[in-house]
Each structure stands twice: as C-alpha cells, then as structure tokens.
C-alpha cells in the first residue's frame, strides 16, 4: 500500500501542492491529468524526493517518512522502492543501454555484475531492444531511449513506478511503442502513477484518474466516470479543451 497524506510544496512564495492525499493499492494503475502548471509533475517528483516536499507523509509498504524531517537515509530508502521515468528520458549519457540498466543493480542493489547483466539482457529483450544493448543513448531514437528509461526503472523491482509525461518529448512516430510497453506493464499489474496527456491511453489502462488543478486533486474516479460524467466544472472544461484539440 502506498499512502501520501498532507503533502505540501511551494516554490518560493508560490504554492504548488496543496494538502495532497492519495492512496494507491498494490497493482493499481493511477493516471494524473490536468492543465499544465497544476503540480502534476511536482507531485511525482515529491513522492521520490527529487523535489523535497515542505510537509506531509509518504508511506510505501512498511516505510513511512515524514517529509519535513526526512533524513538522507530515509530519502534513499524511498527512492530504492520507487522507479522514475523522465519526460526527457535522462539516460546516463556515458553508459550503454545495457549499462543504464545494470548500473543501479550493481551500485545500489549490490548484485554481482554477471547477474545484473543477465537481468539487463532479459529486460532489453522484453522492451524490444535485445540487439541494442551495446548502443549508447546518443545512437538511439527517442522511442528507444525512453524504452531503455522504462527498462532501467523496471530493473529495480520497485513497489511503485512513477512516469512523468513519458511521451511528451517524443516525436509522434515513437509515442506508440512507448505506450505499448507501458500497456504491457499495466497488464502485468505493476503499480504505476502516471502523469500524461494521452487521454485515450489513460482511459484504457487506468484504474483511477486523478484530475488536478491549482495544486489540488479535484476529482478522483474511475476513467469512465471522469471522461463520461465528470462532476467538477474544471474537469469538464479541461476535457473539452483537450478533446477539441485532439
């Protein structure tokens, strides 16, 4: 069980997250939607302390951390239970695709290199890049890089995978392959918290959709309800805008 409560975050005088509370059950797939600048990415980044919350509690399984007084060790422990997929992939530029996956297994999880490599090769095949293990990120397409980014997060066996707009930086031609991979993870009931603008995808794979506006979770409901019968005016207005554009 993942449980976030009382989460607040400001950048200077600007409040970005306002008393967020959120529970995610194991195997649940939760998608966050909403206008830009409403704190969706910040919420994700606060969960694993890439941005430090001002206050709140983050609980993952039996590990509970009080954000206001989190120690370095607690932050590491949280990060070791989560995986993060970045909008701009953020693959280690000095490492091959395979090394991007083995890196944390060897340095963080202290696995023997041979074991880590075998795992990386299995993941590379799973993400459809079995033959690109020796390629550096600079030699991969955006879609391939993001698939390695997801593979790197998968290798951690994290209790929660966080996806921060994983397809927003991609050329349209690569979006499909990344969504397909995420769909596979969703089908395997990997616990996921996803920020995305891909509404069709969200509708397909999500157990719950969170609509965020102004740093708050405005609506939290199954996709059918959010998309077909939104309760809040802001949700309706947002969906009208994105569906008109799409």
């Amino acid at each position: 069980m993942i449980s976030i409560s009382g989460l607040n975050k400001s950048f200077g005088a600007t409040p970005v997250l306002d008393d967020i509370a959120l529970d995610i059950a194991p195997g649940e797939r939760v998608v966050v939607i909403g206008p830009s600048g409403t704190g969706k990415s910040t919420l994700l980044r606060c969960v694993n302390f890439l941005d430090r919350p001002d206050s709140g509690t983050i609980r993952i399984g039996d590990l509970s951390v009080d954000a206001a007084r989190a120690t370095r060790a607690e932050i590491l422990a949280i990060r070791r239970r989560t995986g993060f997929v970045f909008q701009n992939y953020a693959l280690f530029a000095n490492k091959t695709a395979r090394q991007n996956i083995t890196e944390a297994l060897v340095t963080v999880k202290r696995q023997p290199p041979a074991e880590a490599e075998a795992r990386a090769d299995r993941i590379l095949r799973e993400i459809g890049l079995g033959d690109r293990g020796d390629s550096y990120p600079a030699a991969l397409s955006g879609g391939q890089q993001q698939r390695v980014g997801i593979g790197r997060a998968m290798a951690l066996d994290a209790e929660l995978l966080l996806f921060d707009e994983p397809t927003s930086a991609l050329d349209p031609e690569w979006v499909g392959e990344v969504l397909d991979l995420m769909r596979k993870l969703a089908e395997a009931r990997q616990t996921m918290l996803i920020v995305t603008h891909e509404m069709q995808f969200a509708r397909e794979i999500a157990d719950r959709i969170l609509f965020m506006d102004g740093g708050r979770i405005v609506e939290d409901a199954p996709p059918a309800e959010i998309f077909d019968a939104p309760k809040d005016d802001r949700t309706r207005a947002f969906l009208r805008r994105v569906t008109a554009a799409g």
Partner: protein
Amino acid sequence: MRGLDLDYMIGLLPVLLSYVPLTLFMAAIAMAFALVLAAALAVERVVRIPVLDWFVRLFISFFRGTPLLVQLFLFYFGLPQVFGFMTGINGVTATIMGLTLHFSAYMAESIRAAILGVDRSQSEAAEAVGMTRGQAMRRIILPQAARVAAPTLVNYFIDMVKSTSLAFTLGVTELMGSAQKEAAGSFLYFEAFLVVAAIYWAIVEALSLGQRRLEIRLNRAHAR
C-alpha cells in the same frame, strides 16, 4: 653572423635526450597527483562543504595568484627553514610538489566548470535509481565532465611538461639544467638552447597526438 655548429648540436642531442625521462617522470607524477587533487577540489567547490569551502577557495586563490617560480622557491628554500622535517627535500620532490599544487588549482576550476555543464537530469536520474550523491558524482557526473574538461586538462599537462624546466632553478640537473651546463662549457648558447627547444617541442607534439586519441575514446559514447 656565424653559421650554426651542426656537429655540436648533433653531438649534444643524445646527451640532452638522456634527461627526457626525468622531465616526463616529474610531469607524469605531478599530473597524476594534480588530477586527483583537482577533482577533489572541484567536487568540493560544487557541493560546498561549510568551512572546508573557505580553505579550498583560499588554496585555489593562492596557487593561481602567485607565480609557479615563487611557489617552487617557497617549497625548496623557504619551508625547510620553518619545518625541520623538510630540510632534506630534494629539488625533484619540490618540483613535483609545486607543479601538483599549482596546476591542481587551475585544473580544479576547469573540472568544476565541466561538472556544472553536465545536464542536471543526469544527477536526478542517478538519484532516482537510489544512488548516493557520491556514487552519482563518481559514476555518472565526473566521467561526463572528464570528456568536456579533457582538452583543457591536456593543455595544462603540456604546460606542466614545459614547466618542469623550472626545476633547474632548484639545482636539479634536468633537460634545461644540463643544456645550461653544456652551453656554459662550449659558449654555444644558441645551439644548446635550440636543441632544448626542439626536444620540448617534439614532446609536446607527441602529446598532441595522444590527445587526439584520448578525445576519440572519450567521445565514444557520443558518436551517432
């Protein structure tokens, strides 16, 4: 105007060449120490450890702000008068010390700039997979910074090789010192120093070839 005494120069060449290993030895040892020290200084300047940061800034300020020759004289002639245990310091050791400290101050600044040039998403990605800041620095940030800093660092190494010639002011008979002695005996200063210049030039050219190969290696990850 007189002609060059070519026979003298040819005869002098093997004599002076026998000092090349000492020159390379001093430069190589000093470079190895300076790289480690500069990386440590640079990392400190980026993460800024209270109190220590003040000392590091003072260190860099002093060793960049005073001439290498002055620093060498301080180590060789000055410090032994203050610290008894340094009395026996020989010229080669003092030179290696001086070169290390002097160049590490410069190199720290270029490594620091290179670290700051690595995209922030790289350290975020490292932290997101659970690496400590130290692991992220060693395994992800510094290797990428090294690629950016390499041309500048090779430049400093070249400067260092040439600066070993100052060891002769500390009484070390190295390349420059032996040329000075030979010239004083033969009075053929122009010939002697021309040979010295040619030898340094050849060493530096050889290093430049090495630089190209090093850069190709470091750019491996960035070839498309």
